[in-house]
């Protein structure tokens, strides 16, 4: 009986499964993502309004009975309440439910991490692959440019670019709501994220470009690429069909390690008051608000801090585990 061949991905999966830290991290990350996106979705209020009551009464009635509070629902009579049955993690300084804000904030933070990584990845992979594949003088010019851009302080440029784009995002959201009739709540929630995506994505691609370029340089010297070229395949096909798939390992590894960095960048910006704006919540905003009440209400800082740090920790461990699994040569032990 012919033995079943094992692919690179299968091998990698087996290696990853052996690494208990990475497996646990993978499950934790999936759990966090699932709860951030599913619980608020399931817990959305759909109960019809009672026409005999005023809007405020209606909302109070609905929200107080519902197990999942909307994240922006304030109740000033119930601020700083301790964790209880109706507020599993208690409430914040204006009586908003901490759990709901944490989950909604998680959506924003995870979204920023994933979308910025995708943008940075696409720019970096294209740039790096072109640079490595073309080679020669173009390559050294392109890489010298990357070297110079590398010298720029990441955070400073991200802050400037995101502030610049947030002005346009405001105009665009007004346009979308008034002229195109988009849902104003939806636009308000995501419009001020776009500047962050753009800023982090356009600055964060440099390392990805370096990694991809090094890969492309070494792969293009291999015989199967020579074979492809002698068959007369166009460069586009060689790049997309033969070089790119062989670079996926390191790309995935580095992308995984990028996500926590970008989530951290978002949190830092929001902490400084330059990122996601209230009343939207992101983990950075929760941390910033929590630190204002550190002395009197440590819970407001501790809960987001623990979740935030654990998520970043898990993502980093997962990235490390993936590197060991996909790229055994690069593993340092």
């Amino acid at each position, binding site marked *: 009986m012919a033995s079943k061949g094992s692919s690179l991905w299968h091998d990698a999966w087996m290696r990853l499964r052996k690494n208990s830290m990475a497996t646990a991290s993978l499950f934790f990350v999936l759990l966090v993502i699932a709860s951030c996106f599913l619980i608020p979705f399931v817990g959305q209020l759909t109960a019809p309004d009672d026409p005999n009551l005023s809007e405020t009464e209606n909302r109070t009635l609905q929200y107080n009975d519902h197990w999942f509070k909307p994240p922006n629902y304030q109740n000033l009579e119930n601020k700083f309440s301790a964790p209880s049955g109706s507020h599993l993690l208690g409430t914040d300084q204006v009586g908003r439910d901490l759990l709901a804000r944490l989950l909604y904030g998680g959506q924003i933070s995870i979204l920023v991490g994933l979308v910025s990584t995708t943008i940075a990845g696409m720019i970096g992979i294209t740039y790096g692959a072109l640079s490595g594949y073309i080679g020669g003088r173009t390559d050294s010019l392109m890489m010298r440019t990357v*070297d*110079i*851009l590398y*010298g*720029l*302080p*990441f*955070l*400073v*440029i991200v*802050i*400037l*670019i995101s*502030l*610049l784009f947030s*002005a346009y995002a405001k105009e665009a959201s007004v346009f979308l709501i008034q002229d195109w009739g988009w849902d104003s709540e939806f636009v308000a929630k995501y419009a001020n994220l776009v500047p962050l995506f753009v800023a982090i994505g356009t600055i964060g691609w440099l390392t990805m470009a370096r990694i991809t370029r090094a890969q492309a340089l070494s792969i293009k010297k291999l015989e199967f690429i020579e074979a492809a070229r002698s068959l007369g395949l166009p460069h586009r096909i060689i790049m997309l069909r033969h070089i790119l798939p062989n670079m996926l390992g390191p790309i995935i590894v580095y992308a995984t390690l990028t996500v*926590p960095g970008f989530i*951290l960048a978002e*949190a*830092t910006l929001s*902490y*400084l*008051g*330059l990122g996601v704006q209230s009343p939207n919540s992101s983990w950075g905003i929760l*941390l*910033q608000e929590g*630190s204002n009440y*550190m002395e009197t209400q*440590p819970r407001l*800082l501790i809960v987001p*801090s623990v979740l*935030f*740090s654990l998520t*970043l*920790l898990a*993502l*980093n*461990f997962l990235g*490390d585990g993936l590197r060991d699994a996909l790229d055994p040569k690069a593993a*340092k*032990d």
Partner: protein
Amino acid sequence: MLSTILSRLGQGCIVVFLLLALTFVLIRLMPGDPFTSDKALPPHIKEQNEKRFKLNESNLVQFTAYLKTLAQGEMGISITREQPVTKIIKSSFPASAILGIAGIIIAVCVGVPAGILSALKKNSLIDYGTMILAMLGISVPSFVLAPVLASGIAGNIPFLKVAGWGGALDWFLPALTLGLATAAYLARITRGGMLDVLNQDFIRTAKAKGVPALKIILKHALRGGIIPAIAYVGPAFAMLITGSFIVETIFQIPGMGQHFVNATKERDFFLLQGVVIVLGVLIVIGNIAADIALVAINPRLRETS
């Protein structure tokens, strides 16, 4: 060696110039202007203000004028503070410098030994413990670490304050906050570098020859194993400087960080440009210093350059 430094210096100049030009353009493209405040200014006063700071000219004219000012060793006048930018920077630089230097000392003193220890005791409890701590150090942002340190340390030691600047030991907590994250990166990099070297034949030969373990580590392994860590000191320095902006905000330290954040928010063009230039120059110096150290410690680099 000299040519390396010169080319790095040239590259550094480009970096600083690019940074300045980017900042210059971006801050002017942003909506709002430095004179926007709570009450609307009458148009003629606004015009007068703009004339005073030459903001009514085209960007190119402004930029060349600014470069001329720089050439004279000045950085213009802060629009919102009505003070020369050089004066503001001079008064806030020491706090940032103390913080940065203390931070990098803490980072090196904690990170490098931890990495070496981890590599020597590979796959032991010490190794796993150190590496988990290092991962924690990378994952926990400074604004989470700061309150933890503040309540854990400052609460128990009477000389330490939670925030503020001026006392003899006020630098300690912020510098610790700043240094620990970098220490975590350094520990991981040092461990990797040491492991690479420890697996090589010449270490085995030395062991077989009966060279004492300590001498093998210090004299043979460390010289090669430390190289990745030193290569990282340049980027680490940049990370520390921008990181200090955040730590300064947390601990309310009158350093350059507050000026960066406020100047950006208030559109104080000249102050922001000044702060960014200082930042860029510092980063370039850090990178060049790391390059020189690399060449000094690694003879193989000397021959090729």
